[in-house]
């Protein structure tokens, strides 16, 4: 974990617009860290895991924060929107409940008042709770630099442990959620040792779109936290269930495929084998819960 010292020295830059952030990164991106909430970065700096020459503070960039509905029925979440603001949004709680469920389990109120949605992604930690929830919602992020912007699905944001595909001159500005289909619903379940204020041992997000007429899984997305070097989608397990009716055997089959696709590590927190046991149980439970959310007529045929 490393010994906590005072913060290392740095020069602090305080841009007021995204354009100013991009300009600062264009010039100094290789020697700079972006500071949003700071609940991860400041600790990493205290442990001397990173000692950037420049710290670019994002708290003063008003346009990076806030939640706006999109014309296509989706939602645009500014990257420095705090977990608290996310949870205070009625549209997030009603239409994107799986995201609210994931955010509500992060830290306590003091941390959620400063920790940001973008920071939870850009930190690229395998134990982050929002990436799996966002993956199952089909979210994309916008990466902006002074030479333009590009859109990247959250699925493709994490190429390897501890990093994102963002270049040093890019800033994550927006998280975009597509509109949610009818008869859909999600659940994020995580296991951790303590009741609260703990890191995720494993987390499972499931999002089900239910075919109410044929009574089968029209679509399903599953993604995991702390189950591989990066937050990860479970495409093979999803394929197992797509088009299938709801039955315990189908869930069991999907859970076993999740255990084949996942690649958890043994750490002081839990062994690889224990994480597989957790995944098998939580996957089934998350799918059941997501399917209950998706279909109002739950229980009639299952």
């Amino acid at each position, binding site marked *: 974990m490393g010994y906590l010292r005072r913060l290392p020295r740095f020069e602090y830059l305080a841009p007021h617009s995204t354009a100013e952030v991009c300009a600062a990164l264009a010039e100094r991106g290789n020697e700079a860290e972006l500071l949003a909430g700071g609940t991860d970065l400041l600790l990493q700096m205290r442990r001397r895991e990173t000692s950037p020459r420049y710290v670019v503070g994002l708290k003063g960039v008003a346009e990076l924060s806030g939640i706006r509905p999109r014309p296509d029925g989706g939602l645009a979440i500014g990257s420095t929107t705090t977990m608290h603001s996310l949870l205070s949004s009625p549209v997030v709680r009603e239409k994107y409940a799986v995201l609210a469920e994931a955010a509500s389990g992060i830290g306590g109120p*003091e941390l959620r008042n400063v920790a940001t949605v973008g920071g939870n992604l850009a930190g690229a930690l395998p134990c982050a709770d929002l990436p799996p929830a966002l993956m199952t919602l089909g979210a994309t992020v916008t990466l902006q630099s002074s030479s333009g912007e590009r859109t990247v699905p959250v699925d493709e944001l994490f190429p390897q442990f501890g990093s994102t595909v963002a270049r040093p001159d890019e800033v994550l500005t927006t998280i975009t959620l597509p509109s949610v289909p009818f008869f859909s619903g999600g659940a994020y379940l995580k296991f951790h040792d303590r009741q609260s204020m703990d890191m995720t041992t494993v987390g499972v997000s499931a999002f089900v779109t239910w075919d109410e007429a044929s009574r089968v899984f029209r679509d399903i997305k599953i993604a995991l936290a702390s189950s591989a070097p990066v937050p990860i989608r479970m495409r093979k397990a999803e394929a197992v269930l797509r088009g299938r009716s709801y039955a315990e055997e189908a869930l069991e089959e999907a859970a076993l495929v999740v255990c084949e696709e996942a690649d958890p590590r043994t750490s002081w927190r839990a062994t690889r084998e224990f994480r597989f046991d957790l995944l098998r149980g939580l996957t089934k439970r998350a799918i059941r819960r997501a399917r209950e959310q998706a279909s109002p007529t739950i229980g009639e045929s299952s």
Partner: protein
Amino acid sequence: MKQLIPITLRINGVVHEILAPPWRTLLEVLREHLGLTGAKRSCQEGQCGTCTVLVDGNAINSCLYLAVEAQGKEIQTIEGIAQDGVLDQIQKSFVQKGGIQCGFCTPGFVLATKSLLNANPHPSEDEIREAMVGHLCRCTGYVQIVEAIQDAAIQMTREGAN
């Protein structure tokens, strides 16, 4: 690298102008530059809650907040909670219900309670416990703290009604 920069902070309604390096946390500035030692330094990683202060009414961990980023915001510390020497109702309730023993965690709990009751004047016991997850107390076992917060909520509702 600029060593010292001017930082203007509004704390408990008073404006303080100091020179400090940008790598100073709000907690370090409160304690070491301004002598406001109510907020305590303990875990330094956002687990224990002893460094809690209010920024624009919201409880935050001042050990994870740069002083330079607290400019332009309304900062409240435990020193600003009592008015003219008269304890705030939350402080009175903590004293009366035995929610305070050694006192090290108390400023954090009192400010977290203030933040909670601002947003939710009638919290359930579960909501109180959920709001206090970021605070550790090694003396009380938390039961008296929960009772103190419940008492504060009741007394403040009565005050508001009168």
